[in-house]
C-alpha cells in the first residue's frame, strides 16, 4: 500500500505533467481535456464536502454547476451585446472579467444552496436524494423555458472571458487558472477535514444524537457544509462554461448531478483526491472509448460496478488502503 499523501502528491503532479507535456508537444486538445478534468474534479470536490464529510447524497448538485454556468453566460452575453442587465434601481452592466464572474457564481450558488439546504436538510436518506433531484429538475425546466437567455438552445459566448495579466485564450494559461482553482479547493477541503468543524460534521454523519448531546446542531453543521459545497460546484460551473464558451440547460440536468457522484464513487467517497481520480478516469474513458462506440457508458457502468463491488474505498482505497483517522 502506498501512503495516501504520496499518492495524492503523485496525482497532483500527474495533473500538471500531462498538459505541460502536451504543451511542449504542441497538442492543445490534450490540454483542453486536462482542463475539463480539472473543472469536473473541482465540481466533484464541492460535492465531496457535502457527501464525503457530511454524508449528504445530493442528486441535485447540477443546480449549482448550472447556476455558475449561467452566471457566466448571462454576465458575458450582456457584455458582448453592450446591453445592461438592469437599469433600475441602478445600472448593472455585464462583464467579461473572470474574477467578477466567479464572485457572482460563488455568491449565487451559495445562496441557492442555503435556500435548498434549508428545505432539504430537514429530511434524510432517500427523501433527501429525491428532493435534491426535484430541485435539479425545477432549475432544468426553468432554464429550458426562459427564452431570454437562449432557452433550450443555450447561450454562446464568442470570446473567452479575461483574467488580469493572463491570456485566457492560450489553452495552457486557462488550464493554469482551472488547476489553481482545483488546488485551492483541495487545500480548503483538506483543512476542513482536520478542522473542528469537520470533526463535528463527520460526527454528525455517524451519530447525530451524540452531536446534539454535546450542544451542537447537526442541521446547522450540514447546512454550512452544503453551502460551501454548492459554492465550489458553482465556481466549477462558471469555469466549465468558459471552457466551452457555451452554456445550456444540460448543465442543470440530473445526468450531470449523477456524473459528479460517479467521479466521487470511482475515486473513493470522502477521499480528498477521489474526485480528481474519478474525473480523470471519466474524461479519459469518454475520450478513448467514445471514439470506438457511442455506447461507451456501458463500459463506464461496468467499471463503476467493479469499483463498488471490489473496492468500496474507490480507486484511492485500492491503492492506498483504508482511510486513516484524520490527524
Amino acid at each position, binding site marked *: 500500500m502506498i501512503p495516501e499523501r504520496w499518492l495524492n502528491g503523485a496525482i497532483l503532479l500527474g495533473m500538471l505533467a500531462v498538459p505541460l507535456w502536451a504543451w511542449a508537444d504542441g497538442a492543445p486538445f490534450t490540454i483542453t481535456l486536462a482542463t475539463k478534468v480539472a473543472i469536473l474534479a473541482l465540481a466533484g470536490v464541492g460535492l465531496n464536502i457535502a457527501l464525503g464529510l457530511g454524508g449528504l447524497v445530493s442528486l441535485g448538485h447540477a443546480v449549482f454547476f448550472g447556476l455558475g454556468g449561467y452566471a457566466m453566460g448571462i454576465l458575458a452575453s450582456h457584455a458582448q451585446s453592450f446591453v445592461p442587465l438592469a437599469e433600475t434601481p441602478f445600472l448593472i452592466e455585464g462583464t467579461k472579467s473572470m474574477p467578477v464572474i466567479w464572485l457572482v457564481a460563488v455568491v449565487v450558488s451559495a445562496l441557492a444552496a442555503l435556500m435548498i439546504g434549508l428545505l432539504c436538510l430537514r429530511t434524510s436518506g432517500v427523501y433527501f436524494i429525491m428532493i435534491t433531484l426535484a430541485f435539479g429538475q425545477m432549475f432544468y425546466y426553468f432554464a429550458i423555458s426562459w427564452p431570454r437567455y437562449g432557452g433550450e438552445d443555450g447561450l454562446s459566448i464568442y470570446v473567452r472571458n479575461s483574467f488580469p495579466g493572463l491570456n485566457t485564450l492560450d489553452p495552457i494559461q486557462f488550464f493554469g487558472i482551472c488547476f489553481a482553482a482545483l488546488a485551492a479547493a483541495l487545500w480548503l477541503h483538506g483543512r476542513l477535514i482536520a478542522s473542528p468543524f469537520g*470533526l463535528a460534521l463527520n460526527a454528525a454523519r455517524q451519530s447525530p444524537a451524540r452531536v446534539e448531546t454535546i450542544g451542537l446542531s447537526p442541521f446547522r453543521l450540514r447546512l454550512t457544509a452544503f453551502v460551501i459545497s454548492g459554492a465550489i460546484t458553482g465556481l466549477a460551473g462558471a469555469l466549465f462554461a468558459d471552457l466551452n464558451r457555451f452554456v445550456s440547460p444540460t448543465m442543470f440536468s440530473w445526468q450531470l448531478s449523477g456524473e459528479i457522484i460517479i467521479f466521487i464513487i470511482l475515486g473513493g467517497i470522502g477521499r480528498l483526491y477521489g474526485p480528481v481520480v474519478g474525473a480523470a478516469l471519466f474524461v479519459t474513458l469518454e475520450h478513448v472509448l467514445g471514439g470506438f462506440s457511442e455506447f461507451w457508458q456501458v463500459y463506464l457502468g461496468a467499471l463503476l460496478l467493479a469499483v463498488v463491488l471490489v473496492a468500496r474505498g474507490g480507486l484511492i482505497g485500492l491503492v492506498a488502503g483504508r482511510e486513516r483517522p484524520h490527524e
Partner: protein
Amino acid sequence: MSEPVLEVQGLTKHFGAVTACERVSLDLRPGEIHAVIGPNGAGKSTLIAQICGGLRPDAGQVKFLGEDVTALDTRARARMGLARTFQISALAMEDTVLQNAILGALGARGGTPGFLGRALKDKGLREAAEAALTRVGLNDVAATRTAELSHGQRRQLEVAVALTLRPRAFVMDEPMAGMGSEGSARLTRFLSELRHEAPILLVEHDMDAVFALADRLSVLVYGRIIATGSVAEIRANRQVRQAYLGEER
C-alpha cells in the same frame, strides 16, 4: 436541604397503547447519586430521553437549575450543563477515541466550530479531551479507532465525553452494561468521587454498583415509580421486593 439541581414532575409518555412513563416525579440534589432501577422495559430510557430533551413528554415538567426546560431542545439543555450518556453507545465509530473526546470539548467551548484550524492541534481542546480520557483510564487507547474498542471501553468513552462537558449534572443510562466485573468496580469507584463534582442520575442494572453508590434509589415498574428512598429503605420495602428485587435474588 439545598435546592435540587434537576427536578421532574408528573412526566407522562405514551407510545400508542404502551404507557412508558406515568406521572413520574423525582429530583436530583447537589452531591448525590440518585439511582433509578427497574425491570427491562420499565421506561427508564424513555424517562432519560425526556429529561435530556430527545423525547417530548405528553404531560409533566422538567426543571434544571431552577428553570423550566421542558420546551427546550437537547442542545439547549446540553449547553446549560446537562450531560447524558447513552445505553447504546452513540459515538463516532470511525473516529479515534481522542477525536470523540475532542468533540465533547468542542461542545463545551460553545460557539461555531472553527473551519481552518486543526482540531487535534488545538491545545485547549486537546488538553480537556486528554484529561477526561485519563480520568476514565482510556489514555492508552486514545489513538485507537472507536469501532475497535470493547463494549466496556465504549461505555467508558461515553463517560469521558460527558466529562469533557464539565456539566452541572450527569444523566447516565446503564454505564456499566457490558463491562467486566473489574471494569465496573473501577467505574463504581470513579462515580463515587464524581458525584462531588456534579450529581448523577444513574440508571443501572448492576445491583452491586447501585447499592454501593446510590444515596437514594427510585424503583420504576411499568412506567410508575413505586418507591423512592435510601438503599436500606428500598431493600426493606415489601412491594419492591415482590415487584423487582425478588426476581433478582
